């Protein structure tokens, strides 16, 4: 939570990522191939952050990139994929060979963990997970406990709150008070930003008009760092703004299957790019972006 309510000045991607320290706990707001904060993730990779813990309800391209680039030591997640484009190859591989420590949950148990963090609770009761191997593994690590309601006698699982250091989300629009307008389904963004100590928001547009109260998904008083980066979620999609780029996502999936190809992908698209505009220039064309935009407008 920001300390001052001064009118927000937006910062550069580099400045925003500067606040992330090695070993920090990051929450990501994307979901599979939608609304990923790719621009921030690229900069985290460029700044070679290490030993991050990453929490994400349903794993996405953001998560897979960070794991593949070696930034991550531990994840909390509820499963994930790149939808029909492919699996989270780096996440899966790293779980298989134990190079990251993975705490697997379900989608709702992740949401409840964020909600607990948002409300200052250290735990949350839930009725799912019972009887699963997800729970068996969590219990063996002391991450979850069975519990019986002292009033009703009903059985619950208690899961731990998530209190990330920094939430990173991409959204459509913000106003000059830092209020964020998130178009489309909200997923669990409202819970994860409130659970986090600091919040980085990347938006497509900063509006000079103040948003109506009803349009505010993330109140400006919670936003610490606001970044303006058009197409910052590319190649994932952004509701109302642009469709995903299947070609680039497929290229990513192919690259992520093979360490050598992935090294090449990292170097070519991320490490050797000065900024996100350079990545866009290398990956796509204005014509294609215009097409992805028009497709998204048609889907409203």
């Amino acid at each position, binding site marked *: 939570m920001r300390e001052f309510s001064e009118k927000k000045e937006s910062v550069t991607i580099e400045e925003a990522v500067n606040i992330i320290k090695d070993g920090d706990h990051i929450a990501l707001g994307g*979901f*599979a*191939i*939608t609304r990923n904060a790719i621009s921030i993730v690229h900069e985290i990779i460029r700044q070679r952050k290490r030993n991050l813990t990453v929490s994400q*309800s*349903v*794993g*996405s391209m953001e998560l897979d990139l960070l794991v593949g680039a070696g930034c991550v030591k531990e994840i909390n*997640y*509820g*499963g*994930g*994929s790149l*939808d*029909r*484009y492919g*699996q989270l190859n780096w*996440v*899966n*591989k790293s*779980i*298989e060979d134990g190079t990251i420590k993975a705490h*697997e*949950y*379900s*989608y*709702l*148990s992740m*949401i*409840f963990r964020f*909600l607990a963090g948002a409300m200052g609770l250290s735990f949350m009761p*839930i*009725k*799912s*997970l*019972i*009887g*699963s*191997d*997800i729970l068996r593994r969590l219990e063996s690590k002391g991450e979850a406990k069975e519990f019986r309601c002292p009033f009703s006698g*009903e*059985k*619950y699982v208690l899961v731990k709150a998530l209190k990330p250091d920094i939430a990173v989300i991409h959204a459509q629009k913000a106003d000059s008070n830092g209020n964020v307008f998130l178009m*489309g*389904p*909200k*997923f*669990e963004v*409202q*819970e994860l930003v409130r659970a986090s100590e600091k919040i980085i928001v990347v938006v497509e547009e900063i509006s000079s008009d103040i948003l109506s109260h009803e349009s505010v998904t993330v109140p400006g008083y919670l936003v610490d760092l606001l970044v303006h980066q058009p197409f910052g979620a590319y190649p*994932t*999609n*952004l*509701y109302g703004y642009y*469709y*995903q780029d*299947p070609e680039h996502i497929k290229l990513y999936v192919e690259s992520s299957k093979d360490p050598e190809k992935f090294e090449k992908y990292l170097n070519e698209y991320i490490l050797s790019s000065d900024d996100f505009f350079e990545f866009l220039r290398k990956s796509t064309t204005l014509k294609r972006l215009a097409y992805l935009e028009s497709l*998204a407008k048609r*889907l*409203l």
Partner: protein
Amino acid sequence: MVKYSTEELMVVTGARKIKDGNNVMVGIGLPMASAILAKKTHAPNANIFLELGVLNPSSSDFGVGLADIKAWQGAELLTSALDVLGMLLHSGKIDIGFLGALEVDELGNINTTQVELEGGKIKHFTGSGGGNDIASLAKRIVVVMRHQKRKLRKKVSYITSPGYIDGKKRQEAGLRGGDIEIVTDMAVFKFNVKIKKMTISSIHSGVNLDDVVENTGFQLVIPPKVDITPEPTESELKILRDEIPREIYTK
């Protein structure tokens, strides 16, 4: 009787599990086609929810998955995952949930997390998403999957989403529901609260019982008389073919 494909039969069979007014949770693919067909036929007042916060999308192309903005097109309401999973599902207001599976076992437990390769190595897949939550908390569950011996196993290598767990009553374990049906490309199965083991409910027309048994990795419960899966009606097939693109359920 009009001819129909196995996929069409599966879509229609899934659709018939949905009652009018039901709150339904689906992913994209075949279950989405079932839900749309149900709304267009006998269940116009069903509510279709996607777990990330979408109500009644009316798309003709659901794209590549839940996170494809094509799948949200024409939605009646865009809301939050907390509203759908945390409020509706967790409080018992979802009547029926559709799930896929890498593997399912004779007690109805579902694995979508990992498979054991030859030599004991583990290959990790998608994991739960909302799957565990839906299997734990929806009143009824329909699993839609391909019928293969390696996918229908005596015991799954990992329980992502619980069926009857180790054979006990789900309610005693603290779970809701327990009315589980499995629709494959060969047959329909159900779990009986008494037996709690996978029981043949019906076999698709043209499929041989021996083939079903042969392609199942454990001993099925076979009732004295095995019905043929009710076939699609002409009007169901007409609506399916005219109004629901094949890509929705065959991709």
